[in-house]
């Protein structure tokens, strides 16, 4: 199993500013994922972050808007840059699959409101 500490849990930000979300995992993991989820909707994958390589972004998401760092096997950050109200959402980090298990584990999420 994996326990993920995600910070901050929520924030209210001014448009045009940036917010960096951090995820710390209690074990070494190869793959980390960053998702966005609007209330009542499904999860949308932003990017996959592997240690030692550049993040792989999904269609509709670009590195300039959502830069990701993955400095080691237990930590990653997602920055939401130059925010607009449309960026208001819940952001989730996730890890998996791991050795012997395909289970995905999630952080508690960051509820972002841009005003």
């Amino acid at each position, binding site marked *: 199993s994996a326990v993920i500490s995600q910070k901050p849990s929520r924030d209210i930000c001014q448009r045009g500013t940036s917010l960096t979300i951090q995820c710390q995992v209690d074990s070494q993991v190869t*793959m980390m*994922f960053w998702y966005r989820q609007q209330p*009542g*909707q*499904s*999860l*949308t*994958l932003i990017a*996959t972050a*592997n240690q030692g390589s550049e993040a*792989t972004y999904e269609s509709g998401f670009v590195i300039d808007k959502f830069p990701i760092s993955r400095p080691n096997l237990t930590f990653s950050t997602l920055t939401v840059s130059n925010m607009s109200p449309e960026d208001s959402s819940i952001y*989730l980090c996730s890890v998996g*699959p791991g050795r012997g298990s*395909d*289970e*995905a*584990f*999630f*952080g*508690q*999420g960051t509820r972002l409101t841009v005003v």
Partner: protein
Amino acid sequence: GQQVMQIPQYQHVQEGEDFTTYCNSSTTLSNIQWYKQRPGGHPVFLIQLVKSGEVKKQKRLTFQFGEAKKNSSLHITATQTTDVGTYFCAPWTHAGNNRKLIWGLGTSLAVNP
């Protein structure tokens, strides 16, 4: 890209009634996972199915993987208020050198006490 469809989108039941959600894919899946997300929470893994025709049970929950590995279902017997939440199906797929989960839209379950 690959998609999975889930029906129904919403379901309201009286406590004690049964509930079923269905997950369908146009392509053959190597696996399917089910997750539950409580209101205000994050997704929590329930089960993974990998074999054709596989059936797994967890107390009141029964999971099935179709013979053609293109569909799956989650059935809850005698729902309780603790079953409230959104149930997602999601297969792991390969994307280049990576793997990623393809998430269905989810079925939101409300249980009236």
